[in-house]
C-alpha cells in the first residue's frame, strides 16, 4: 500500500471490542445504591399485573469494562479534537472546554425546569443575555431559544410566518425554496402545511431574480433563503429579494446555517430578513456530539413577536426575570420546557470569550481559510461556480470522474490521509459535489496538509484510481455493505446470533 505521501497520519494499534451484550455475565455489576431508608416494598404486590417480570437481555457488566468499552469505541471515531473536519455546511469548529466546564456548574446543570422563578434567576439571566447577544449579532427584534436544532428552528420560523399571515386572514399556500437548499427546508415547509415550489439558481449559483419575479404571487407565504447559500456564495441581492417579497405581502426566511461567514460583517435583520434561525452548534461552537444535541434559536422582526412560542422571558418591574405564558397569539410550543438550555450556556460562553473583535476575526479567518483552499485546489479539482466564496467552497469530481473516481471515493481516501471527508454530493445543483468548509479553527499547517492530501489524491486518481475507489485502506473496517443494511435491516442485537467480531 502506498503510504509514503501521507504525512498527517500513521497506523497504530487499535483495540478490538465486541458489543456490550457480548461481555455480559450474570452477577457482574457496575452500580451501587445506598441502603434504603424507608420500608422495602413488594413491587409485585404494589403493581399487580403491571409489575415487570424481568429485564430481558439488558447487560450485566462491571465498571472497568464499561470504561474500556466506550474508551475503545471512542478511538474508532474522528472528531474536531482529532483533526480538521471539513464537512461543508456543518461548521465543525473547535468546541472550547470552558463551555463544558460552565455548563456543568451544579446550580445550572441540576436546575429543574419547574423550579420557582426566584430560584431560576441565574438560568433566566443567562437566557436573556444570550438573547440580547444574538439579537445584536443578527439585527433582529425578538427571539425564542426553544427550538432544539436547526430544522426545529426552521419549523418554528415558518409557523411564525404562517401565524402572521393567518392573523391577516390568509396563511397562503406556498413556500419558495432555491434548488441549492438543504433538504430540511422543503421537509419543514411540508410539515408547516405548505406546498413547496422550487426556485432555480442562476448561472452564478444565486437566486435568479427573474425566476423569483415570475414565481412570486399572492399565494407565496415566504422564501426560505440560505445566506451565504450552500455554494458558499453571498446572495448580494438580498435587499432586493426582500423588497420583492414584501411587495407581494410575503416574508423572507433566512436559514442561518452558514452564519459563520457573516457574524460581525453584516446583519440579516438590516437586509430585509424577517425571520431566521441560528445553529448554535455551528456558528456558536456548541459540540455536535456525534449528531446532537444542537440548538436552533429563531429570531424575528417585531411583526412576528406576538406569535413566538410560549413562554417568553420578561423582566418584571422589580428587575426580576419571569416566564410569561400568557401569549394569546402564540403558535404554542415546539417542545417541552424552554429549549436545550445546556447548549445556550455554551454558546454564551463562546460569545463572551470572543467579544465583538474576536467574533469578527473568527468570521474573517473562516472566510480566509476557505478562499485559501479554493485558490490552492482550483485546477486540481473542477470549480463549477466561479462566484467568490465566503466560508466554504464547492468543487466537483468532474476531472476525476473521467477516471471513474467519484466524490464519495475521494472523500473516503481523505480518511486514509488522516482527515474526515468533506460533505459529499451536496448541494444537489453541483453534480459530484465536494463541499469543503474549513472553519476558522484550522492552522495554516493543517490547511496545507489538507491541500497536500487532496493534491496527492488527485494524482492517485490519474495513476492508480483503484487505490481511491477502494479507499479507505487504513481504517479498522473497509467499506460497508449499505445496500444489504437497508434491504435486510438489522437494527438491534439479538442473543444467539453469534456475530463475528471485528477481529476475525
Amino acid at each position, binding site marked *: 500500500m502506498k503510504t509514503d505521501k501521507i504525512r498527517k497520519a500513521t497506523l497504530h494499534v487499535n483495540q478490538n471490542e465486541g458489543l456490550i451484550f457480548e461481555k455480559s455475565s450474570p452477577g457482574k455489576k457496575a452500580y451501587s445504591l445506598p441502603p434504603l431508608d424507608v420500608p422495602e416494598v413488594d413491587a409485585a404486590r404494589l403493581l399487580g399485573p403491571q409489575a*415487570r417480570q424481568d*429485564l430481558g437481555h439488558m447487560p450485566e457488566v462491571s465498571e472497568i469494562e*464499561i*470504561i474500556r468499552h466506550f474508551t475503545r469505541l471512542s478511538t474508532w471515531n474522528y472528531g474536531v479534537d482529532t483533526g480538521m473536519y471539513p464537512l461543508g455546511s456543518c461548521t465543525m469548529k473547535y468546541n472550547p472546554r470552558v463551555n463544558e466546564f460552565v455548563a456543568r456548574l*451544579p446550580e445550572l446543570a441540576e436546575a429543574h425546569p419547574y423550579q420557582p422563578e426566584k430560584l431560576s434567576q441565574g438560568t433566566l439571566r443567562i437566557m436573556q443575555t444570550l438573547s440580547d447577544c444574538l439579537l445584536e449579532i443578527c439585527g433582529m427584534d425578538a427571539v425564542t431559544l426553544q427550538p432544539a436544532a436547526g430544522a426545529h428552528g426552521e419549523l418554528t420560523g415558518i409557523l411564525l410566518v404562517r401565524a402572521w399571515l393567518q392573523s391577516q386572514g390568509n396563511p397562503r399556500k406556498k413556500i419558495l425554496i432555491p434548488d441549492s437548499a438543504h433538504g430540511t427546508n422543503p421537509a419543514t415547509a411540508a410539515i408547516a402545511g405548505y406546498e413547496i415550489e422550487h426556485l432555480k439558481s442562476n448561472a452564478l449559483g444565486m437566486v435568479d431574480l427573474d425566476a423569483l419575479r415570475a414565481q412570486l404571487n399572492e399565494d407565496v407565504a415566504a422564501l426560505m433563503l440560505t445566506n451565504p447559500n450552500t455554494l458558499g456564495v453571498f446572495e448580494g441581492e438580498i435587499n432586493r429579494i426582500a423588497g420583492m417579497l414584501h411587495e407581494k405581502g410575503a416574508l423572507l426566511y433566512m436559514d442561518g446555517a452558514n452564519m459563520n461567514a457573516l457574524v460581525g460583517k453584516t446583519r440579516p435583520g438590516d437586509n430585509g430578513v424577517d425571520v431566521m434561525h441560528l445553529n448554535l452548534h455551528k456558528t456558536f461552537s456548541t459540540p455536535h*456530539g456525534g449528531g446532537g444535541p444542537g440548538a436552533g434559536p429563531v429570531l424575528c422582526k417585531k411583526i412576528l413577536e406576538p406569535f413566538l412560542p410560549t413562554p417568553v422571558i420578561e423582566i418584571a418591574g422589580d428587575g426580576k426575570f419571569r416566564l410569561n405564558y400568557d401569549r394569546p397569539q402564540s403558535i404554542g410550543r415546539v417542545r417541552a420546557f424552554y429549549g436545550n438550555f*445546556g447548549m445556550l450556556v455554551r454558546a454564551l460562553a463562546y460569545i463572551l470569550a470572543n467579544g465583538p473583535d474576536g467574533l469578527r476575526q473568527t468570521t474573517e479567518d473562516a472566510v480566509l481559510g476557505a478562499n485559501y483552499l479554493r485558490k490552492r485546489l482550483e485546477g486540481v479539482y473542477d470549480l463549477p461556480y466561479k462566484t467568490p466564496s465566503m466560508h466554504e467552497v464547492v468543487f466537483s469530481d468532474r476531472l476525476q470522474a473521467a477516471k471513474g473516481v467519484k466524490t464519495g471515493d475521494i472523500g473516503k481516501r481523505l480518511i486514509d490521509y488522516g482527515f474526515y471527508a468533506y460533505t459529499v454530493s451536496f448541494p444537489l445543483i453541483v453534480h459530484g459535489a465536494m463541499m469543503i468548509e474549513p472553519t476558522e479553527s484550522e492552522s495554516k499547517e493543517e490547511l496545507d496538509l489538507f491541500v497536500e492530501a487532496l493534491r496527492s489524491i488527485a494524482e492517485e486518481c490519474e495513476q492508480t484510481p483503484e487505490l481511491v475507489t477502494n479507499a479507505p485502506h487504513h481504517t479498522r473496517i473497509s*467499506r460497508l455493505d449499505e445496500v444489504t443494511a437497508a434491504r435486510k435491516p438489522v437494527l438491534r442485537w439479538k442473543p444467539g446470533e453469534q456475530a463475528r467480531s471485528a477481529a476475525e
Partner: protein
Amino acid sequence: MRYLPKSPSDRAAMLQEIGVRSVADLFSQIPPTARLQRDLNLPPAKSEAEIVEWFRQRALENGNHYTVCLGAGAYHHYRPVIIDSLISRGEFFTAYTPYQPEISQGTLQAIFEFQTMICELTGMEVANASMYDGSTAATEAVLMARRITGRDGVVVARSVHPEYREVLRAYAKNQGVSIAECGFGQNGRVDPAAIGQAITGATACVLIQSPNFFGTVEDVEAMAEVVHKKGALLVVAVAEAVSLGALRPPVEADIVALEAQAFGVPLGYGGPYAGVVATKEKFVRQMPGRLVGETRDKQGRRGFVLTLATREQHIRREKATSNICTNQALIALMATVFMIVYGKEGLKELARHNLAKTAYAVERFRKAGATVLFEGAPRFNEFVVQTKADPYRINDRLLESHILGGFPVLKKFYPELGAGHFALWCCTELVSREAIDYAAETIRTTA
C-alpha cells in the same frame, strides 16, 4: 483570540497566496450598503477566568443543592460519574453525525447498543437513534401513525403531559390533524371504554402516557384491545424512563415515544434531553429520525451504518417522514452508559427504590392530613396531593429547608380537578426519608 490558530504572518501569507491585498477584499461580494459599518455592541472579550466567574455568579443567583420533589416530565436521579467521564471523550463529543462509517464506528456502535436496550426495555422491535425530546417524539409518533393508517384523527388522553399536548397541537394544526381529548377517571386512569367511544373511523391513533402525568400507571393491555378493535393504533408515551425497571413494558403499543432524560441526563433546566421513537418492525419505514443498522465490510467484518435513509429529508426532501436532521446522539450516549451501569438487575433495584420512597411518602402525607388522589391504580414515583393550604405556601416554607416541593401549577392545566389545592409530587431514590418526613410535617402545619 485564544481559539484562533493563525498567526498574523500566516494570515498575510494566505492573503498573498489568494492574491488579495486585505481580508476586506474577501468580503467584497457583500454590497457596501449591506455591510455592518460598526463593531457589534457586545461585551468585550473575557478571559477564561472571567467567564468562569460570570457563570459562577449566575449559578449563585439560582437555587443550589435542593432535595427535588418535582418531576412532571423531568426527573432527578443519581448520575454515575462515569457518564460524564465517557461522554467527555473528544472523539465522541466533537464528532458529527456518522456519515463516514469507517471512522465513526464508535458513535455507530454506541447507537446500535442504545437502540437494542430501548427495544429490550420498551418491548418494541425497533428503536431509532433518538429525537429532540419526549414531547417531539410523542408528536412524531402521532404523525407516524397518521402516515401508517392514512387517517387524520388522534385521540389524546388528558393525562398526557400538558406540554407534550401543546407541542402536538402546534405541529398538528397545519397538517389537517384533528385532536380529540379524553378525560381521566376517579382512579387517575383513562377509561378504555371512554377511549373506545372517542375513536371514530377517522382516528389514526390514541395517545396515552404511562406512567401518566399524575404518576398513575395506565392499563396498556386493556387500552390496546379497545384501540385495535376499532382499527386505530396505540401510541404510548413514557416520560419517566426509570419506571421501565419496574413496570410491565407496553408491548401491546404500536409505537412507544420515550423521554430518556431519567436515564442519567442532567435536569439542566429542561434540556438537552433525548426522545426516542420505538415501534414494530413492520412500521420501520414510516419511522422518523436516524437509524443505525448492522452490516459487513468487504472482508466480512461486522460494522454499523446509518440506514434506511430513504425516509429522511436529505434524500426525500418534502416527502420525508420528518424534517429532523440531527438526533441527540450525545444525550443518547449518556442514557446508554446509564442503562449499562445499572443493567439488568440495577434498573430493577433502582425502580424499586423509587416505588418504596413514593409509597412511604404517600403514607406520610396522608397521615399529615393531605389527600392523595387516584386510588385503585398503581403509581410509580409521582402522585397528586390535595392539601388544605395553598401549595405555593407549602413550597415557600419547604424552600427554607432546601426542599423543592411538588409542582403547584396543576390547576391551570387541569381545571377538572375542581375546588381545592393540588400539587404533583415526585419521590425518586434521591429523596431521603428525612426530607419526606419534613415535607409531611410542613403540609400538616401550613394553614
